[in-house]
């Protein structure tokens, strides 16, 4: 029976290489699926890479997928840093999209810059209010936030479906249950043929990086996550810190909703998030809740999705394969943590 003991310290290079090795191992193990399908895994990984970065078109598509993942993961990271297990990003994205769409549909003739600004503010408020509900429960009564945020995702999606079939149904859609398309005034402009969400994403990565690392509130969030008692003794206002970080977390997700509704679907649909809220959790975790790493991981995951849909058309491999691959990578990285924190002891009874 091998014994495991805690490592005292591990160099950054060593821990990074363990993580990268675990990702490669996941790709290697997943090859079995392709071999079972009688396809050459190397060919498939190569064509995934090509599908994600092979042309300027595919690079743009990959970036479009990375934008919502990155911003939502930043939001989730703020909450996770506090050990607030917010898995309600999906619902917060939907409610942000809903709030933004109300203005887009009500004031279609407003000048573009002011309408877009209002939509952004509305999206942020919509998402943060939706996130505030579980946060208030948690702060007041210690209600389990994981389940509440999750349940609220379903409430949000049913709400959008209800709007599609009822109050916001487009009368011009010939009985088809959908919400009217936005006017051009409500659609995000493009720079380099990609909607300007990518600029927001980069700015927000910088903002969150600075916020978490160099501000008092950011530090308090991290302390509270590590230990509530420490936070209490050092005079952190726990309730206030929970509320601020959740408003920020939900607000970022709400902004994602606005960006997706305005820049991608050009209307409000229940698929406006399309699982981004869940994938972003994986991205946030793999990014070690650190803003710059999240940026890199979100691009990689976007590439995985874009590449995944490419092999779907060229090899007939179902899109679900990409889903499995994503979770396998996460499994392996989760497992690899152990080898970063612990090492195998050679001597008997060397345990601390």
């Amino acid at each position, binding site marked *: 029976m091998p014994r495991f*003991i*805690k490592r005292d310290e591990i160099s950054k290079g060593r821990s990074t290489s363990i993580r990268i090795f675990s990702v490669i191992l996941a790709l290697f193990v997943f090859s079995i*699926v392709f071999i079972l399908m009688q396809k050459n895994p190397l060919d498939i990984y190569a064509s995934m890479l090509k599908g994600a970065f092979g042309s300027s078109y595919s690079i743009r598509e990959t970036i479009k997928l990375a934008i919502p993942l990155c911003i939502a993961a930043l939001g989730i990271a703020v909450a996770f840093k506090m050990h607030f*297990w917010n*898995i309600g990003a999906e619902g917060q994205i939907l409610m942000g999209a809903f709030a933004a769409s109300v203005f887009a549909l009500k004031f279609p003739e407003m000048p573009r810059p002011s309408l877009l600004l209002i939509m952004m503010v509305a999206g942020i408020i919509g998402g943060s209010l939706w996130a505030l509900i579980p946060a208030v*429960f948690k702060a007041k*009564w*210690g*209600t*389990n936030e*994981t*389940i*509440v945020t*999750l*349940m*609220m995702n*379903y*409430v949000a999606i*049913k*709400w959008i*479906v*209800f709007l599609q*079939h*009822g109050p916001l149904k487009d009368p011009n859609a010939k009985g088809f249950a959908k919400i009217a398309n936005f006017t051009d005034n409500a659609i995000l402009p493009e720079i380099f043929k990609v909607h300007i969400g990518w600029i927001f994403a980069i700015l927000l990565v910088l903002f969150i990086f600075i916020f978490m690392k160099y501000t008092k509130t950011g530090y308090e969030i991290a302390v509270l996550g590590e230990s509530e008692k420490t936070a209490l003794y050092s005079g952190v206002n726990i309730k206030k810190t929970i509320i601020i970080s959740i408003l920020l977390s939900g607000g970022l997700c709400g902004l994602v909703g606005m960006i997706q509704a305005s820049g991608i679907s050009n209307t409000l649909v229940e698929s406006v998030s399309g699982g981004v809220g*869940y994938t972003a*959790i*994986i991205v946030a*975790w793999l990014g070690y809740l650190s803003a710059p790493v999240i940026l890199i991981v979100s691009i990689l995951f976007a590439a995985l999705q874009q590449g995944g849909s490419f092999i779907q058309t060229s090899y007939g491999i*179902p*899109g*679900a*394969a*990409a*889903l*499995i691959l*994503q*979770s*396998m990578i*996460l*499994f392996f990285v*989760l*497992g690899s*943590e*152990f080898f970063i*924190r612990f090492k195998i002891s050679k001597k008997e009874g060397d*345990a*601390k």
Partner: protein
Amino acid sequence: MNGISTFLAAAIVAGTPLLFATLGEILIERAGNLNLGVEGMMLMGAVIGFLVGLTTGNVFAALLGAMVAGAFGGLIFAFLTISLRANQVVTGLALATFGSGFSTLIGKQLVGQTAPAAVKSFFRPYPIPIISDIPVIGPIFFKQDAFVYLGYILAVVIGVYLYNTSKGLNLRAIGENPGCADAASINITLYKYVHILIGGALCGLGGAYLSLVYIPNWQENVVAGRGWIAIALVIFSAWNPYKAILGAFLFGGLDIIGFRLQGAGIQVSQYLVDMLPYLVTITILVIVSMKKSKRNAPPKNLGTPYFREDR
């Protein structure tokens, strides 16, 4: 009256997959592990159960397949969270994603297929002699299919196991205070593995009930969020298998009420009624946390990995 009793009988059918998954998750959480991957394990059980049922036409092979598939999902979770001490929340979420991809990929060629006749006839409603003649209760509870009866039995067996056997006491001790359990020389790792695997197998069975009996043909994402409801039901039933029966059937009722109301000519938006199970879950969670009674509290060590050297 007749309408109400058929509604209640249907609520029990709709609640049965929830019951299996809730019982499974109760075992897992009693061992101190919070597995959020119930949805994934149910989907894995649903697809494998359906696939085996379709190819062999054998009911027991299908159920066994579903249990193995669910337990396999549990094994991934157990290995990562027990042996490698990974974060339980994130591992569970990854398992949910994995199961969803797994079932979609394997179920690709099954879409539109119907469950085999042998399975269907096996799970025909079978009234239990004598007690099904009891007025009101009989037609609601005892004119059901074999799966539903299995659910009743399992809930009671798990209840007796938890509260009336020494092994069950050991399990509860592990969830409450693994340090003490360890000192009492209970093999914690073994207990955790066994209960997570059995829990996963039960979730797999719940999924198989959906694909083989409830629906009964293969469609993508056949579980449709019931796994998440089951996690909430564990809290609702305060980790008590007996209360899980009530909870599961209540939620089964909420699941079908929109459809039934429309059938009865009552005008309500189905989409708003569809929110009910989720809103009720949230309300219950909040009420439970407000009361903070000791009886309804979660196992004390839920969610924290146990590592002897850490103490």
